[in-house]
């Protein structure tokens, strides 16, 4: 059997002591940078590129891949402990994960995130190994009309992110969409809302925005009320999930894995939606939607699984087409080219050891991550006991380093400070930052795909209805709207979304 032979080749390659070492270095580094707020996988991989010159191509790619999914594991740690998401996926984890931490359940939240990530990583690695080529064919059928309709589904569902007033949540989504408009119009080159500042010509930096409205705003709130944090530390109970937690997390992990794997395959921005989509689904089908936003186990387990599954399957377009689905993949392609391997549709046949070695290393890396992370949870939770007057300057320093390292641009630091103040103001008004970030992420994609679809159809909006996948997605969006508006369900919803 071909697949079996290939997997044997892959594991033989990935399990050589040399490659195991680099896999280990990769996941350790990834976990570290994931834990340090603001420093992302992209910046780290960019910094490490020169070192990879000296390594075997397979080893260097195994290491870089390890950094990437290691960072996905580690990223949830800061989101849960200090409400500081470093990327869009962990912004969702912060909603319920941080609330769990505030209830003294930081350890359980971290374990749930790690277990969910491991399960999702395992399943999606198998998916990559078995179905990469046919899945690629499906992904290529997604043109701009399909992406537009997909983003509509995402936007319609975004109201589920709110656990306070729905009107305020919608307001935050719109504000996010508007912030997403800053930058250069890609179709005409016209600068928009850049206030004459050259640094804004490519738009606001996501990391700066997220660190500002979530992390810095939270620090300001904590400084205002030190009492809250004392509660958080004193109430630390068990580090591991209880039997009840296991019962609550199993189904969300399974669903999150499916959602994340499916969205991760789409190179045009599907993976971004993975954790948001999972959160929405969990909240919709939950018997206790009122728990969401107050520390629901499903609100951590589902999105974390979805996010990790999406991270793994986003390797598919790179491995089968040589096309990067995100900036990290672009860097890995750069690393391959520097090594003399130009990635393209034939990598699997021309470089079987490389191709299958990377796939096998993903599973090995995931295994290493869970073995590494579970024992570390106790340590992370102890971090919370550091006096806040020592902790918060360190957090701010690391954030600044991290945000600066994204573009080597001082302007981004001003943006962090500015959005920290904005985020503080929003918190005072009881407006939540998660819908704002979703709007910010989806807005530019929505516009880009809408306008591109219209250009290609020469102005005929029927293109969204004539294409079956797009039509299906729009019907799904309509169904979600109907569910939201149906009177009987509305009654229930009103109970859920009352202002607290």
């Amino acid at each position, binding site marked *: 059997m071909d697949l079996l032979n290939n997997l044997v080749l892959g594991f033989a390659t990935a399990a050589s002591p040399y490659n195991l070492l680099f896999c280990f270095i990769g996941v350790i580094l990834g976990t570290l940078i994931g834990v340090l707020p603001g420093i992302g996988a992209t910046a780290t991989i960019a910094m490490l590129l*020169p*070192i990879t010159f000296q390594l075997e191509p397979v080893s260097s790619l195994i290491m870089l891949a390890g950094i990437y999914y290691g960072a996905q594991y580690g990223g949830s740690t800061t989101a849960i402990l200090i409400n500081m998401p470093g990327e869009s996926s962990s912004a969702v984890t912060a909603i319920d994960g941080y609330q769990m931490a505030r209830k003294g359940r930081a350890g359980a939240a971290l374990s749930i995130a790690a277990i969910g990530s491991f399960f999702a990583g395992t399943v999606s690695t198998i998916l990559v190994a078995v179905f990469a080529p046919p899945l690629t064919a499906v992904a290529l059928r997604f043109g701009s009309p399909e992406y537009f309709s997909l983003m509509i589904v995402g936007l319609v569902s975004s109201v589920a992110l709110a656990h306070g007033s729905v009107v305020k949540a919608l307001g935050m989504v719109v504000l996010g969409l508007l912030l997403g408009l800053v930058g*250069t119009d890609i179709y005409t080159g016209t600068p928009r809302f850049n206030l004459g500042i*050259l640094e804004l010509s490519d738009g606001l930096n996501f990391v700066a925005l997220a660190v500002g409205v979530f992390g810095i705003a939270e620090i300001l709130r904590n400084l205002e009320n030190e009492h809250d944090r004392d509660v958080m530390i004193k109430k630390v109970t068990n580090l591991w999930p209880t039997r009840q937690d296991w019962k609550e997390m199993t189904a969300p992990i399974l669903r999150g894995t499916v959602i994340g794997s499916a969205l991760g395959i789409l190179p045009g921005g599907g993976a971004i939606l993975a954790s948001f989509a999972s959160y929405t689904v969990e909240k919709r089908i939950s018997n206790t939607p009122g728990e969401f936003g107050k520390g629901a186990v499903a609100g951590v387990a589902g999105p974390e699984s979805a996010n990790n599954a999406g991270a793994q399957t986003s390797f598919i377009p790179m491995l089968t087409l040589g096309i990067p689905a995100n900036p990290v993949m672009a860097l890995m392609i750069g690393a391959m080219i520097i090594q003399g391997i130009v990635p393209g549709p034939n990598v699997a046949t021309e470089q079987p050891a490389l191709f299958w070695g990377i796939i096998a290393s993903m599973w090995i890396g995931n295994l290493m991550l869970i073995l590494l992370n579970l024992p570390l949870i106790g340590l992370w939770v102890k971090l919370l006991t550091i006096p806040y007057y020592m902790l918060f300057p360190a957090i701010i320093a690391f954030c600044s380093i991290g945000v600066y390292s994204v573009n080597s641009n001082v302007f981004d630091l001003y943006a962090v400070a500015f959005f920290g103040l904005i985020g503080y103001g929003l918190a005072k008004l009881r407006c939540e930052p998660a819908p704002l970030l979703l709007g910010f992420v989806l807005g530019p994609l929505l516009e880009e795909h809408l306008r591109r679809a219209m*250009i290609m159809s020469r102005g005929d909006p029927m293109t969204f209805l004539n294409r079956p996948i797009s039509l299906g997605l729009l019907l799904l969006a309509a169904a979600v709207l109907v569910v939201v508006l149906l009177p009987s369900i509305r009654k229930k919803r009103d109970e859920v979304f009352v202002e607290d």
Partner: protein
Amino acid sequence: MLKLFTSLAATAAIALISGSAFAQGYPERSITMVVPFAAGGPTDTVTRLVAESMSKDLGQQIIVENVGGAGGTLGASQVAKADPDGYTLLLHHIGMATSATLYRKLPYDTLNAFEYVGLVTDVPMTIVAKKDFEPTDLKGLVEYVKANADKITLANAGIGAASHLCGMLFMSEIKTPLTTVPYKGTGPAMTDLLGGQVDLMCDQTTNTTKQIKGGTIKAYGVTSAKRLDALPDVPTVAEAGLPGMQVGIWHGIYAPKGTPAEVTQKLSGSLQKALKDPDIIARFAELGTVPSTDAEATPAGLKSKLESEVTRWKPVIEAAGQYAD
């Protein structure tokens, strides 16, 4: 701390292989080479290959720093403002010349803000289409495109990108405006070309060679003077009747205005040596390009290239009427 650690590790790694670090005078410490684009892209790749080879020769590490944004003008303006001591350099491509017209307001004066080190390479472009596109050769393509101008879509990777420039040139050569579809970068544009969502594109061989060889897209011509070793079956545009389409994405190394001539000369000599490195020649060949000659890899060679290219692209861009600011 991590950044410090990694740069220390990188320095150690480079120092190990470079061996003798006993350079006299310049350079006495590491040099920063700014790439005005994201890490991992084609220009970044060229820079890292050349920087690694030049580091060995100079005995000091050249650190590649990616300062992306605003079509490369952010990175260029940062270097224009840097100290002219030879420790900050810029590796930029054809965009250095085209942004002089694409941007009506630039924070630096393209022709007077820099000293020149030399040309690095000239990457040819390929005219490619989705794999089931009807025409069989470039002549057929031109006829087909002219006959179906209202149905054809032409992709590019955003305003100012190589594919945008080449697309403008293609339309002006065949005197037929087409519906252009901009993307955010080459990746998504190529994805849509592979999926058949868009019909045509003209892009650097760095991005297209593997896809052409893999049979996932169709190639109609290369914009170089000679056929490429990497793609021997693809005719040149001149052979196929479009001699005006000869265009390349040339890359050059610059230093801030006022950098001493001895320094740029020394760097230029080091660049010439790097470009004869068999490793670089092999990697460049895989990307479908060749290193610049000794005559081109000089301050004078780059200066005249920049000046002639600013002049060449001005009317093309003004005719298209699309500006980046």
